């Protein structure tokens, strides 16, 4: 188990999350990742995953996952980028693009029409999409339709 206030401090420092956003959750470290789960008593059995993988500590700086930003990123007050529809399509396709913005270099929360699309990397005036491959929306690839 990981101290929730350590996790919160990282997110507050980078994204300006308000207090309380992480209350009611607990955090686990496995290998180089942090996972977030509803704070509930866990039966003592073995687990493949615990909740949602929210960040990677593998490299510096730490990197938030797109799925965690889609849940918690809407509370961000700093290092956010708002795209128009052309920019959003590029981002969704996994591309990089030049984009003037006042973010600090590093990971940013990418918004489009009020919704969080996911994680971007802002570096040297470029926004580099960090969407995982299976979440990208390249123009004519197959969507999946599981039941």
């Amino acid at each position, binding site marked *: 188990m990981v101290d929730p206030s350590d996790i919160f401090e990282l997110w507050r420092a980078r994204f300006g999350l308000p207090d309380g956003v992480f209350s009611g959750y607990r955090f686990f470290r496995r290998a180089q990742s942090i996972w977030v789960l*509803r704070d509930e008593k866990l*039966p003592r059995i073995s687990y493949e995953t615990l909740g949602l993988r929210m960040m990677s500590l593998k490299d510096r700086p730490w990197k938030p996952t797109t799925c965690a930003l889609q849940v918690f990123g809407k509370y961000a007050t700093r290092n956010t980028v708002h795209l128009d529809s052309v920019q959003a399509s590029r981002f969704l396709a996994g591309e990089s693009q030049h984009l003037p913005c006042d973010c600090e270099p590093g990971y940013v929360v990418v918004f489009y029409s009020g919704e969080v699309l996911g994680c971007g990397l802002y570096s040297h005036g470029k926004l580099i999409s960090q969407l995982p491959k299976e979440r990208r929306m390249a123009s004519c690839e197959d969507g999946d339709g599981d*039941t």
Partner: protein
Amino acid sequence: MDYAERYREIIPEFDRFQEIQSCPLAATARINELKIDRSRLLERLRVGGISFEQLGWYSHGIRLSSEKPGKLLDYMLGFIHIQEEVSMVPPLILGPLPGERVLDLCASPGGKTTQISQMMKNQGLVVANEPSLSRISALRSNCERLGALNVVITRYDGRQFPEIDVDRVLVDAPCSSEGRARRDPGIWSRCSPKRSQDLAALQTGLLKRAVKLAKPGGVIVYSTCTYAPEENELVVQSVLDSARLEQVALPGLKECPGLTEWQGRILSDELKLCARYYPHQNDTGGFFVARLIKE
């Protein structure tokens, strides 16, 4: 398709049943309230010009005319999950409540797991079990896309799931999938009594374990997407010494009662409380659902 002939006596309006097998199914999706309010999602679809129809019997179900709903931005954002219409039934019959502990014994790819998580308002704990490693990745990716924060994934053979206390258990068992034939017509050619017998052994093992794990008074739902009585009523009958059945019905969705007789064999009369959903009665896939209360 000839294999379906064995159901002529048990499926009402059998000719219509046969006819609809070759009609493709409309795409349906569930609105994921873990991430977005229902009204806001409906508004987004309207504004985005995406045509849809609400399901009459379930406020969170929609029918989409899009050929590839998996390509919608709303899908990528985790606002909707593509899920066959009658596959939304078992979680509703399970009726999980916020704060409970629920076991989903055969979970991947997680359509029902995430529906349960949503019904629990992301509170309590959903233990989603799936023995197949390759299928765990789909389960995980759906849970993450849909923003489920109360789900843990385990990897056991469900028949040997370790002893834990649970309020409710869903057994959405591996089956011969005859009810999916409108999506995949090749299914009928893979069906045989022998295959159903083999599956029934596994299904019985899973359901017995589920009943064992539930607390007294706890709810167990057993479901399959097949018509084969060997995999449905005969499996449920095997646990009626330790659990009793309750009626399965949802207003607005037509069901047929479970069978109390099959191939000359008389089964427990209680089994009529189970529900059989047929494709020609609601224009859906096929499903079987039983709700049990542990004694």
